[in-house]
């Protein structure tokens, strides 16, 4: 990518990585590595940080198409998990995205028998709740962060936070966040409309992705047309396109 106009090296790397994920989603081809195509390997700290931002969506093509991810992409995601763990005072969303990265890695490379995967809710409050990682990399015990704060969040901030956590909106990946989204589909639909009105295309795309993943939005919303509009207006940001494409793939799968 021409990073001349990127606001920072990290922003440029995120743009590159998201672009490659979108290309992989469009082609359905996973023979090539997403990270390799973006010029990112395990030794590239900016690239690893970009992988932390993209999170589990790095492997989204494999998740949605049900194919094995490229080992290079798995290695970069694993490195991002270990290189950038949530700080003790990190916001809950950061803890959740980190948890989901581990969960996704374990989805493709289950931990050895006897080790406990993600799934146990602990902690309270709106921050931390990061659980405990035992061992290194993707094996060991890692508890679900707290999600109680989502239940009482106003629908505007609920949608904002869910949009930040859009990588969790994938099939067959149960979590407390996904359950909260399913319980508040109408709030998410309201948030989707609000985001479109505010021209916050990334938030709209993330909210739309959640609605496509969980269903249950009001029929009057016009989600499909709304996503078309979001992509039309915000498609210059590959993260917007990534969420919209993911939403469409999940909606198509639900319709089958």
């Amino acid at each position, binding site marked *: 990518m021409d990073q001349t106009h990127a606001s920072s090296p*990290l922003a440029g790397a995120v743009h590159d990585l998201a672009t490659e994920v979108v290309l992989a989603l469009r082609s359905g081809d996973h023979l090539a590595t997403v990270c390799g195509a973006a010029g990112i390997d395990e030794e590239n*700290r900016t690239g690893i940080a970009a992988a932390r931002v993209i999170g589990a969506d790095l492997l989204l093509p494999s998740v949605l198409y049900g194919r094995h991810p490229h080992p290079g992409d798995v290695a970069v995601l694993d490195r991002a998990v270990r290189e950038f763990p949530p700080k003790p005072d990190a916001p809950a969303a950061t803890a959740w995205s980190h948890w989901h990265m581990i969960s996704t890695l374990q989805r493709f490379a289950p931990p050895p028998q006897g080790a406990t995967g993600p799934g146990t809710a602990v902690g309270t409050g709106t921050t931390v709740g990061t659980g405990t990682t035992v061992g290194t990399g993707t094996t060991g015990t890692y508890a679900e962060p707290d999600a109680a704060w989502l239940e009482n969040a106003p629908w505007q901030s609920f949608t904002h936070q869910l949009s930040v956590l859009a990588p969790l909106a994938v099939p067959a990946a149960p979590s407390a966040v996904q359950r909260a989204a399913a319980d508040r589909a109408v709030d998410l639909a309201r948030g989707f409309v609000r985001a479109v*009105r*505010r021209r*916050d295309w990334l938030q709209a795309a993330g909210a739309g992705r959640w609605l496509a993943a969980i269903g249950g939005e009001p029929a009057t919303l016009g989600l499909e*047309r709304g996503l078309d509009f979001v992509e*039309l207006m915000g498609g210059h940001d590959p993260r917007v396109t990534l969420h919209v494409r993911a939403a469409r793939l999940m909606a198509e799968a639900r319709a089958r």
Partner: protein
Amino acid sequence: MYTTDTTATDIELDLDTALNPGEIDGVYRDSRECAYLALLAGGGALLLSPPTPRPKKG
């Protein structure tokens, strides 16, 4: 060494911001965009409904 340390710090600051973005300031649609929505009609009744009241300042 100085450059490396600075870069590492910058990356972590950028990363924290990227992982926890605040909401952007709302910029509401203009009539041209409403026309796009109208062209995409066939749904989206809520998206084409009148805008919600904006909060009063002061």
